[in-house]
């Protein structure tokens, strides 16, 4: 079976029961995505598939052949951080770091949803073309990622710095 992970094509065979998370961690040794609850409740396993965030623990790997999978390793590297990774450091968006790769992947996916004008449960006017990245919107949209250390305030600040008004990444482009 063929997979595209972080831009690289990979061929391998595996048991149909393998989750995408286990494939990434156990077979490809990409340890960024974490196994927290293994039932879709914590978001630590979040990765991007064709740019959309999903819980890789609930995904059967066989369903994701030939799809473009991005893990945190594909977003940035220690010597070339993604702007959101830099913002997480700047704003103390983590303590133990276990949920962080999931938070980062999830926030990158969320930013794309924002650009596409996807509404949220707290959006007042669902028919609006665009929504403001307020702390309320951000917290609702990031509710699929838990942080047991309680670094939420730093996480909100970091995401707002990276993707909020005056988007640093866009300014750099």
């Amino acid at each position: 079976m063929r997979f595209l992970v972080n831009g690289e094509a990979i061929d391998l065979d595996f048991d149909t029961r393998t989750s995408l998370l286990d494939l990434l961690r156990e077979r490809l040794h990409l340890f960024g995505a974490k196994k927290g609850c293994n039932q879709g409740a914590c978001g630590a396993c979040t990765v991007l598939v064709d740019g959309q965030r999903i819980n890789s623990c609930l995904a059967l790997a066989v369903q994701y052949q030939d799809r473009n999978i991005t893990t945190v390793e594909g977003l940035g590297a220690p010597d070339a951080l993604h702007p959101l990774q830099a913002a997480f450091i700047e704003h103390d968006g983590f303590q133990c770091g276990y949920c962080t790769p999931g938070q980062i992947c999830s926030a990158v996916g969320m930013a794309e949803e924002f650009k596409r004008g996807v509404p949220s449960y707290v959006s007042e006017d669902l028919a609006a073309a665009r929504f403001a990245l307020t702390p309320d919107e951000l917290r609702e949209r990031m509710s699929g990622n838990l942080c047991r250390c309680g670094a939420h305030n730093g996480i909100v600040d970091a995401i707002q710095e990276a993707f909020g008004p005056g988007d640093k990444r866009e300014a750099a482009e």
Partner: protein
Amino acid sequence: MNPFFYERASDRPAALALGARAGAKYLGGGTNLVDLMRETIERPQVLVDVTALSCSIDDTEDGGLRIGAGVRNTALAADRRVRERYPMLARAILAGASAQIRNMATVGGNLLQRTRCVYFYDEAARCNKRKPGSGCDAIEGFNRYHAIFGASPACVATHPSDMAVALAALDAVVLVEGEAGARAVPIVNFHRLPGDTPEVETVLQPGDLITAVTLPPKGFAGRSSYRKVRDRASYAFALVSVAAAVDLQEGVVREARIALGGVAHKPWRATAAETALKGGPATEIAFRAAAEAEFVSARGLRHNAFKIDLGRRVITDMLVKLAARKESA
């Protein structure tokens, strides 16, 4: 997880042929099924991936919408026609699960998700739904999340979907294909009450495939909403949720639609409240009386009787706010 064969259906006939095999189950986003397989509550021998089929949302000739069963929850909630013409449905979908799960979950799978009753998941507990005839530990147990309408001595579990509650209020229809051909099932008749067979949750026959859900033209865009009350502000199942819509003319209720989530084995259409409202004044007193009329048939358990008062209040408050809304367009 038990071993299974994985087959990807390229078209509908292929899916139906594969789905007719012994031990076959259709696979959408897998967000509930994979979890249940891991717990060995579900043990399919063949998984038929139908995510490549029926993935579009199309206008129907009568002015409604036809939503393919493979449409992802996010895509449905983000669709401009749904947001403008059926905002109650968009908000209900956005009230459910997390963004990651909504990106994976399909419309068909959302309808077929199973209860989150903790005793259903707990191998050590008695559960008539997981093991018919074994008993129910929820009735005398921790039943805060359980049913107050239509429950039976065999089962007090609730259906977890938010989307289906709005679909019930909108009079949506589920299109099904199977050995006997195609048929259309009104959503309010699609899920079953538990009775003596809580393990049978829908009217689907083995091998039946949900192909689409259709919405009638009337979407109550001006005065409708979905409100979900839960134990935390986001990403939790409903204690009580309400999809409500009213059509007013000069202070009189021409038509009302109310459906409740988190209170029954299926999305609960509040027909007693609707009947009480129809033709009556759009006043808080009338709204409260209608909400009370609905809950006459409610039966609380030790930990969930609070839902009766909560449900009445949420319905009344929503109707008051909807009636006060200035209708645009």
